[in-house]
């Protein structure tokens, strides 16, 4: 914290507190001390006026960097949770950087190498791919790899892709038993969510 100023006197302390006098969040004792100082200090009174003006100007400043979709969704009749779940299933492809792709590759190897040959798995979007993933699973962040594998094995889920940007995995479970497989996964304490993903659910 090398840039912390050490307050030497009431004036410096007053200068530091002015922004919160402006937004009205000072404790009563602090506010009283500040008012007493303001009564005697023209410089602080001028700074207070400037701070009030600055806050008014700042609060009225339009936000330019708000993502368009966020603005559009703010009043839309779309379930936010549904949208977030869909984003989990597609975010990896959109957000992938080299580092993230490498991390995902490592995660795939770590997760799968001990139990299954790599050939049983594929990446979404691969030209050589067979069937796509049909479910998404998100584990608690502290879930050990062996527990993830056991959970997926127990539901006959094959890993297809992941982790996504939010740490979820795309899996394929037997289509005819998808509901039961997802219910089984949801019943496990280490599973945060297990949801169906269909091609029609794409972005």
């Amino acid at each position, binding site marked *: *914290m090398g*840039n*912390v*100023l050490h*307050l030497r006197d009431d004036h410096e302390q007053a*200068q*530091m*507190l*002015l*922004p*919160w006098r*402006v*937004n*009205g*969040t*000072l404790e009563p004792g602090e506010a009283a001390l500040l008012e007493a100082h303001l009564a005697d200090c023209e410089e602080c009174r001028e700074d207070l*006026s*400037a*701070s*009030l*003006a*600055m*806050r*008014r*100007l*700042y*609060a*009225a*400043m*339009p*936000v*330019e*960097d*708000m*993502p*368009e*979709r*966020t*603005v559009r*969704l*703010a009043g839309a009749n779309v*379930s*936010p*949770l549904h949208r*977030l779940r869909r*984003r*989990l299933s597609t*975010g990896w492809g959109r*957000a992938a*950087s080299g*580092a993230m792709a490498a991390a995902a590759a490592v995660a795939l190897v770590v997760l799968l190498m001990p139990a299954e040959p790599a050939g049983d798995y594929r990446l979404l979007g691969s030209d050589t791919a067979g069937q796509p993933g049909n479910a998404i699973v*998100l584990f*608690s962040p502290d879930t050990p790899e062996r527990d993830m594998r056991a959970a997926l094995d127990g539901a006959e889920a094959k890993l297809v892709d992941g982790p996504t*940007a*939010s740490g979820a995995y795309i899996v394929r479970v037997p289509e005819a038993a998808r509901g039961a497989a997802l219910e089984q996964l949801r019943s496990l304490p280490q599973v*945060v969510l297990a949801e169906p993903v269909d091609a029609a659910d794409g972005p």
Partner: protein
Amino acid sequence: MTQPETTSDLQLIARVGQRDAEAFDELYRKYQARLGRFLANVVRQPQIVEEVLDDTLMVVWERASDFKGESKLSTWIFAIAYRKAMKALRRYDAPLEDHEAENRLSPEADPEQTFGQTRLHALLRAAMAQLSPDHRAVVELTYFQDLSYREIAAIMECPVDTVKTRMFYARRQLKRCLDGELPDWI
């Protein structure tokens, strides 16, 4: 400017902790605009803002049962957003300060920006761009979100004196960039 926190916030997060999707939707709609503005002003890159906003709200969904009410719900949520934002900026290796912003602001370039509030906002935006994300966060949390310096310190996980110092320097920098213009607003 900000909505007061009520007991309904505590009831809402408790329901979210019990995996109530409707409660989450309500919480999402309540906080999305505030969080979006905070992140937009701190991060300043729409594609990262959207990712961080979604990640933040997903953590709220996943970890709602961890919220014990030791702070205000808004403090807890903003702290998650701030940590996610800083992590994303590091991951994308984004420039922390835009030193070219002042040079790009040319009053002659856009006649509509040469008068009144629009011009002042352009000046203020350029001045904000020259601050670090940490300084921008303190300005936003103080001047728009109306949080106390103690709440801001909790969000940014730093001492209260650091918050005060950051705001002092930010205010001085903004005032310098708006020199001669701000009195018209007083």
